[in-house]
């Protein structure tokens, strides 16, 4: 039982990270119909920024906030300077640009901070936080922080005029212009927010996976899977998808361990959990191509 709860908790913590990166992907997807392959590397770069700030003497949370703000600016700048001129370019050119960005951020981080794996601190108190034997302090902290960030984002999109304008611009850019929304800036803002959410994910996961330029590779894969399972056009679905994939992969490993323990036959373990999780994702998508929560837009003509 205790092992089950531990696996569940670790699934929740991983899921929270996947949820953030998946949400970042979906935020850009809904307004541009593009998948930003560089999302993970941007998050990694943001994490290095926070590490650098800490090594210059900032406290964890101050570095966290400054890095998130810098990431926002980085996202806005990338949209304005690199993607804006390409807004009518064919999809394939954009894919090349995204992959180029991925490579640039990766090698830039390597050049500045080297490819040596670094330890990354956890800001959460070792004692008096978490529930002994069930969820560790860092895991609980990750879940709490990401839930707060997701809640803030949800409130922003749901209740503020700017959030409404961003949703309108994503849904029908031409009509949004006709009610005075500056659609180009909404896209840039979307990029900024996506980069910020990615930064939160990177900073939260770095203590678990350690800091190195390739830290987000696997996570981006999980985030894609999460976004697709939840429904690539549905932000809430992507978040749910993140938690589903996170819990699922750990449950798969847990089940494998149990089987090995009772029967002595090794079928699956930690090593195979990504494979099995992705198989389940593919299965879900064959049954529900729009994803579990993919919204079928009701439209009467």
């Amino acid at each position, binding site marked *: 039982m205790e092992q089950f709860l531990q696996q569940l908790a670790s699934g929740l913590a991983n899921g929270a990270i996947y949820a953030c990166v998946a949400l970042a992907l979906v935020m850009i997807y809904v307004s541009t119909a593009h998948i930003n392959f560089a999302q993970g590397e941007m998050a990694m770069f943001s994490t290095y920024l926070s590490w650098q700030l800490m090594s210059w003497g900032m406290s964890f949370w101050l570095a966290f906030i400054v890095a998130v703000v810098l990431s926002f600016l980085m996202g806005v700048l990338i949209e304005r300077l690199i993607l804006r001129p390409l807004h009518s370019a064919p999809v394939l050119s954009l894919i090349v640009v995204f992959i180029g960005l991925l490579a640039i951020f990766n090698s830039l981080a390597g050049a500045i901070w080297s490819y040596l794996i670094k330890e990354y601190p956890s800001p959460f108190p070792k004692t008096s936080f978490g529930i002994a034997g069930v969820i560790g302090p860092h895991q609980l902290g990750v879940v709490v922080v990401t839930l707060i960030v997701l809640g803030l984002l949800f409130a922003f999109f749901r209740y503020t005029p700017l959030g409404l304008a961003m949703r309108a611009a994503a849904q029908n850019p031409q009509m949004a212009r006709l009610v005075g929304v500056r*659609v180009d800036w909404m896209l840039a803002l979307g990029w900024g927010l996506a980069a910020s959410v990615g930064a939160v994910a990177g900073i939260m996961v770095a203590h678990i996976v350690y800091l190195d330029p390739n830290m987000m590779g696997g996570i981006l894969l999980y985030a894609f899977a999460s976004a697709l399972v939840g429904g690539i056009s549905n932000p809430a679905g992507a978040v749910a998808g993140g938690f589903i994939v996170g819990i699922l992969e750990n449950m798969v490993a847990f089940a494998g361990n149990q089987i090995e323990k009772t029967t002595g036959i090794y079928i699956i373990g930690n090593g195979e959990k990504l494979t099995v999780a992705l198989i389940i994702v593919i299965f879900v998508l064959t049954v529900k191509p729009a994803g579990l929560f993919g919204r079928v837009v009701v439209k009467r003509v």
Partner: protein
Amino acid sequence: MAALLEVKGLKAFYGQTQSLYDVGFEIETGGITTLLGANGAGKTTTLRAICNMVRREGLVRFDGKDIKNMPTEEVVRLRIAHVPEGRGTFTTLTVDENLRIAAYTRRDKVAVNRELERVFSYFPRLQERVQQQAGTLSGGEQQMLAIARALMLGPRLMLLDEPSFGLAPLIVVEIFRILRRINEEEKVSILLVEQNAALALDLADHAYVLETGHVVMSGPSAVVKNDENIRKSYLGY
């Protein structure tokens, strides 16, 4: 009196294709003007050219000010409200959000709510569906929503692109009655593009007839309506 909107020698292009050659007209403050013509005459393009949604050349002057180089979202800020072809519903947003988006630059919440009340007085049907997803409204309701949203901009000029399109005759009559009220009570000038010439000429006080990107005829609605030649050659009824 100076014209509210003055268009002269307007040309418009879709890529390499030129679709307006020489369109010129004037709209007086408080008036209702209609642009008539067959399919492909350039009516919709003219509206889009005013709002800078297509590449264009020529003079477009609003309230004495040249707006030719203004991007669409700035033109709207001059309180020119464009109700586009196909209604431009934000289908995944609620009716309430569809209306509030038109007031998003305004910080004064009380004023926005007052505006909403006023808009609902024209369209009580929308008030009943205020939390409904806009994509689930009927065609007539979506057209009402589009006009209501334009009203939320506090417009001085409303550009209407075929408000009767695809709607039942009774609904069309209702919508045109509301347009008349909006023109009279809100002092909104209207530029109306319509296929249904008879209907448009009843509402408008001035009419221009377009053919393949040129203005071929203009005059007071009453005159255009009673001219058998125009009716037969251009309006087809």
